[in-house]
């Protein structure tokens, strides 16, 4: 069997591809992409950066909300969807490309769910939806734990 000699050009190309692949792998691992929890957390956090950047929220409080969202019993079923969406985290977080795909409506529902839950869990509506005031995370909005906290309901 005749051995084919690797040309200089082929060697440079394959080395570059290899280095790129290894680098991507390292970055992927380092970025926590392979860790489902981290990936979901980042995907949810991206909603805040993309859609609520005009509000004055504190990152630590938002992370606390995200933790509560992920661990809340009633979200167990929905987290499967979040997990699937989070595979597209880099595209979602850093571009608008997904808005032109079949994922658009799922992402829109996801954003609505996160924003609804967060805003209802905060001081925002209770303080007149004033965008100039810092938004305080009060506690995770759960009607069974905090009944009668619907900020919009009126009786008179």
């Amino acid at each position, binding site marked *: 069997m005749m051995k084919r000699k690797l040309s200089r050009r082929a060697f440079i190309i394959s080395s570059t591809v290899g280095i790129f692949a290894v680098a991507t792998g390292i970055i992927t691992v380092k970025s926590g992409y392979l860790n489902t929890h981290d990936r979901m957390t980042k995907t949810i956090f991206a909603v805040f950066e993309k*859609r609520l950047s*005009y509000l004055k929220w504190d990152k630590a409080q938002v992370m606390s909300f995200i933790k509560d969202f992920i661990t809340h019993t*009633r979200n167990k079923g929905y987290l499967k969807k979040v997990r699937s969406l989070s595979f597209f985290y880099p595209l979602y977080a850093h571009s608008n490309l997904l808005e032109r795909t079949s994922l658009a409506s799922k992402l829109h529902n996801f954003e609505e769910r996160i924003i609804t839950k967060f805003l209802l869990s905060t001081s925002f509506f209770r303080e007149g939806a004033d965008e100039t005031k810092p938004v305080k995370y009060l506690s995770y909005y759960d009607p*069974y734990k905090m*009944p009668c906290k*619907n900020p*919009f*309901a009126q009786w008179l």
Partner: protein
Amino acid sequence: MDNTFDVIVVGTSFSGSFFLHGYLPKANKNARILVLEQGQMKSQRRQQLQQHNKPRLISSQVPFFNHTPEKPWIVVSGFGGGSRAWWACTPRMMPNDFKLKSVYDVGVDWPLTYQELEPYYTRSEIIMAVSGADDGAPYPRSRPYPQPPHRFSDPDRLLTAAYPDQYFQQATARARVSTANRPLCCGTGVCNQCPIDSKFTILNEMAHLYRDPRVTLLFEAEALAVETAAGQATGVRYLKDGIEQNAKANLVVLGANAIFNPYLLQRSNLEHPLLGKGLNEQVGVYVNIDLDGVDNFQGSTSITGHGYMLYDGVHRSKYAACIIEVWNVPNRLRVERGRWRQRCRMKFIFEDLPDKKNEVKVSTTLSHQPEVVYKGYSAYTQRGIDSLPNVLPKMLAPLPVEKLTIEGVTTTEGHILGTTVMGDDPTTSIVDKYLIHHQVRNLMVLGSSVFPTSAPANPTLTLSALTLWAVDHL
């Protein structure tokens, strides 16, 4: 235990409890009434905790075999039955719902009229302390609602201004004013398991009936069959603690539901070609409306408005009527800055026509279980649903609609109807207009299983009123 009673009642939900409410004042002081409840007594708090831990608690808890699990039928066992999980929506049926055949040449007529049932509607509303519109109603009323109406949201106000005779505050047993046993509804929006016990349930308003010394209430007692002899009911065979037992009585009252009522009659060998046939319920379609410049959710309860714009009218000769629920639960706000509340969610609930293909029967593989065969809702209902894209733009013109999205059909409305229907003709119905079995004259069948047609309106108030009507005519 002496197992001889005057009356045996199967079930503690609305029909069983409203029966006791009507019957106890008439019964003599030594009367003996046995009530068999298949489930357990659970406290409201325990139920809430279960709901909290199990997001989908309200599924079938009672064993029956569903051939089409994609079409669920909601059965809630335990003391109070369906009252534990209902949303407390209490519209009456419309007068023409009782004469669909005569007026629109569709379905069948009921054997009684709205006018005959009206006093019993009023009594049921008093028992449930129903809140409703104080300046009109889509149906004739002899008395005002016991409680004032809930507060409208802003979209409701636009609709009622445009449709003053067709749009009202929803009639509901979610308290607008505190009662002795229930606090004011605070619009939490999770009414199937109200966290503050504000909606009417059998547990919070009718449990005292079961403390009457004449009543013996057995939990985890599963009725197996009505015993008969010489064309008369003699008692009920039931399972308790794994042992089959017999209780005797002069009157047997089935107040289970539209799956277990026909099943018990079938197991009692009370055969009829239509027994168990015609299983149906209403069919709901959600519509999401993004508004331009109008905020929502200012109402005081979860569902604030009831629209009758697509309910009664000549269209019913061609396609199904629907009642419109306008929801006030902020569970999906908008993403756009400053427009979070500019959204309105409505549910269009269509009537269905019973079809013999949809039925309940004794399971062929497990004779101690009913099985449900459901082939689907009627073409009449589908035509109603199909009309929405054409009728909605005009009907919703009073609202500043930015975007309208008609969503899919809901899997269930949580009602089970039409499997032991009432009628004057024993060949086409199981019970008569007083809910007495046509052949066994001391056997009463209560609940929405007796509904000959579904009507769009939620069935609970009507089945409660029918129960009071039936007791009054005993």
